[in-house]
């Protein structure tokens, strides 16, 4: 892969900016020579033709939702409606500075206020902040809220957060950044929280529990009400990771299950694109006892005007420069308005149907450690497929068939895990073809395992040497001048 540093370099790149229309001095005359850059950054001057061709070539080495099914478990890689991109790019929204006086941004404020109300309805909780900008950022905000809540009650001894062993890595990491220690709770044989193991941990040092509902095995915690009741009775709070909301949106609400904090991933459930790893948006909904602690500013409505309210003295403060990822919120709002109640229910109906349909078919070929009704995703194992064949081999062989692999080696409690989430935006035909290819790969694993070990052979690059990348880290382009 050639980088931009190996192209052009000294081409004509001028003509974007005009000549200066005010009288000019030398920069050093304004600032003094000491402040002036002594060595220019090595960013090549490249013509527009070269730049456009370089990045067009690079984009073709990628795989996106627009290329085909993207069954990454827990990532909800659903189709990203095009209209969302266009509404959020309207100049009225895009070209607004965050310090603009409220009277000139009534449109954005109204949208944020209305989206907040809709998300409160989806969560079944009384208040929402749009400030967090990613799922893990929402988790962190939730953990800050836990901290502040117990601080306000003089219960700072509550320093432990409980987590099932199937939790996403961001959960323990977020708890730790907020200053909590983490205690893992083992799952039971059915793949859900072991109530006895949970009760054994509940004492007055526990701040609460972080749950993913349904969990990362795609299994709904049938005992969810007992779990949240037990935590509440012990004086703790319940955090719900909303990564898997796609499986019950329009049918059930975290607030009715005992959630005190629930984070949305607008870039999963509400169809905004992942962008190759962000930006996302991680709105957080909270129960009544936590409302006063939400981040500032909050968007409020005063008669028919919308405003930013900073006056919440008990707030945890701010977690983002301004009001969160507003342009992402606009995409989510566009999506919600189109779907309405009917559409939201159709989302979970079809997401869950698609997953169960695939699970039933694929369990004939691949091991299914937890063989039961799933929600929007399920976890297979490549164990026992063929001697010496790993999940990584299966994943890389899928690439040869032009399909993005599922999430692999997660959750950690399943060996050789393949975590599959088809989402509702895939057709039956696509699911059939995906299953057929996985079946073909299983046959290849037995008959021609070398096809899997060597895969991918049809991708832009073959398998990359991860060990060398870690052992000999090269994070920046090695300019020739630095090599001598």
């Amino acid at each position, binding site marked *: *892969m050639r*980088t*931009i*540093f190996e192209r052009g370099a000294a081409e004509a*790149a001028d003509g974007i*900016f005009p000549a200066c229309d*005010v009288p000019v001095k030398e920069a050093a005359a304004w600032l003094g020579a000491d402040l002036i*850059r002594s*060595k220019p*950054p090595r960013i090549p001057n490249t013509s527009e033709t070269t*730049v456009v061709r370089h990045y067009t070539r*690079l*984009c073709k*080495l*990628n795989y*996106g*939702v*627009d290329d085909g099914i993207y069954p990454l478990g827990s990532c909800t890689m659903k189709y*990203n409606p095009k209209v969302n*991109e266009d*509404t959020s790019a309207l*100049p009225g929204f*895009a070209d607004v*500075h*965050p*310090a603009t006086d409220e009277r*000139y941004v009534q449109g954005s404020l109204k949208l944020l206020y209305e989206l907040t109300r*809709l998300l409160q309805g989806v969560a*079944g909780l009384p208040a929402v902040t749009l400030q967090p900008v*990613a*799922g893990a950022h929402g988790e*962190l905000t939730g953990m*800050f809220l836990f901290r502040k809540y117990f601080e306000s009650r003089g219960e700072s001894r509550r320093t432990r957060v409980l987590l099932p062993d199937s939790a996403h890595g961001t959960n323990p*990491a*977020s708890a*730790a*950044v907020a200053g909590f220690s983490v205690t893992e709770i083992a799952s039971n044989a059915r793949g859900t929280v072991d109530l006895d193991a949970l009760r054994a941990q509940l004492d007055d040092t526990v701040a609460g529990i972080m749950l993913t509902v349904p969990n990362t095995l795609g299994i*709904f915690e049938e005992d969810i009400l007992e779990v949240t009741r037990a935590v509440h009775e012990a004086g703790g709070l319940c955090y719900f990771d909303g990564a898997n909301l796609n499986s019950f949106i329009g049918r059930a*609400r975290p607030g*009715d299950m005992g959630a005190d904090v629930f984070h949305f991933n607008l870039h999963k459930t509400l169809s905004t694109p992942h*962008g190759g*790893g*962000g930006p*996302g948006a991680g709105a957080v909904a909270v129960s009544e006892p936590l409302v006063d602690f939400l981040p500032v500013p909050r968007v409020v409505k005063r008669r028919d005007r919308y405003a930013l309210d900073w006056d919440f003295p008990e707030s945890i403060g701010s977690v983002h*420069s301004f009001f969160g990822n507003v*342009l992402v919120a606009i995409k989510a709002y566009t999506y919600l308005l*189109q*779907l*309405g*109640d009917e559409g939201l229910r159709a989302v979970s109906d079809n997401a869950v149907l*698609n997953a169960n349909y695939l699970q039933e078919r694929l369990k004939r070929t691949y091991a299914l450690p937890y063989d039961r009704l799933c929600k929007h995703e399920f976890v297979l194992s490549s164990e026992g497929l063929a001697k010496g064949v790993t999940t990584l081999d299966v994943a890389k062989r899928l*690439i040869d068939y032009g399909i*993005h692999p599922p999430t692999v080696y997660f959750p950690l409690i399943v060996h050789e895990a393949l975590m599959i989430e088809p989402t509702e935006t895939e*057709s*039956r035909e696509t699911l059939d073809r995906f299953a057929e290819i996985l079946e073909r790969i299983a046959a290849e694993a037995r008959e021609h395992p070398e096809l899997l070990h*060597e895969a991918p052979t049809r*991708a832009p690059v073959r398998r*990359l040497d991860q060990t060398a990348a*870690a052992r000999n*880290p090269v994070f920046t382009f090695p300019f020739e001048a630095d090599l001598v």
Partner: protein
Amino acid sequence: MRYIPNADADRHAMLRQIGRSSIDELFADIPPSVTDAHRPLDLPPKSELEVFGELSRLAEANTASGRVPLLGGGVYDHYIPRAVHHIASRSEFYTAYTPYQPEISQGTLTVMFEFQTMIAELTGMEIANASMYDGATALAEAVLMAERIRKRGRVAVAANLFSHDRRVVETYAWAAGVELVDVPFTPTGRCDLARIPEDISAFVVQSPNAFGVIEALDGLKACLGDALLIAATYPLALGILEPPGAFGADIVVGEGQCLGLPMGYGGPLLGLFATRKEHLRQLPGRVAGRTMDADGRIGYTMTAQTREQHIRREKATSNICTNAAHCALTATVYLASIGAGGLRQVALLNLEKAHYLATRIAKLKDYSLVFDGPFFNEFVVRPSGGNADAVRERLEAGGFLVESPRAMADLGVPNALRLAVTERRTQAELDRVVDILGGKR
């Protein structure tokens, strides 16, 4: 609904195949009391045509977009070359996930590698990560990282930080139990280096700072002992300014919105994070590295992941997962489009135009510049007679957008306006500002 391809006939066939009689059966594991309690939003579905109209009307209700902004403070009204938008709109880029499968993500990964290189070059540092959420969270993470390295429980912070950066740092530091100690500023607008306390893990400085003033970083590192120097910077200004890396900074962060992102009412933004190789193990966030494939061809992959949450869980250097990858891609294409030459040109345009306006305002009899330190593209003006609010009203009546004097008052500078001037402002607009201030309009 056209985002859900399956028709009723498909659903029936699928249910039959899995031995279920209805969709409801698939939800039998949710407690009935929970599903019974569900209430709809009272939101009827709408067509794309209707929704696009509704959103267009909301966008038009933002009357700000027809006005001329003199707003800055971390987010600026810069020009974005049109090619940047066209490239960033390629759905192969924006509909991809985090590049967990490098063989079909070489586009994203190569751009990440280019981005890291460009940020390291700009800031004068050895390595950069693949992005943070925004400048404020990047700064907060820098404080946590420095505290992990030096473990003194105390970090000194210049009092002339942007307020939004300061607020986020406070939240993170509170939770981590890190004490923040203020370092005041002098009449130059620069922080008072003589007032940096001892026994700190790090000192946080911003340059240009909340008053637009460029800090004197030369020699600063030497007076910190072994405390780390964290510098927050404005990457576009580094087209002409000596970067913090050249002055020995240990961590350089910044807000990358100026590199080709729309202002977007403050989000999405782009957090920049650069440091030195010796601190790699404490670096938060993702990083792409160069390696070889099985045939010996160069390729890129996410690496150094043993620092990250999906491997290290509660012992990770940060909880960050999703970052601002697409914003980083946009910034990369922006920088590639304008090149080092264009970056210098646009930085000079900002500098010259801001100085033109500041010089003319300073000559008006009722106005003065509050600080006399060197500045880049924004500065603080004080009208005599304590009427900053009224001056702002006059400018707004003239079609400009100006930040409330509260912003400066919050930093201990009452009755003052911060004005920012970018390459987009014309001489005619700046002359009009002067005329309004001078009472000629």
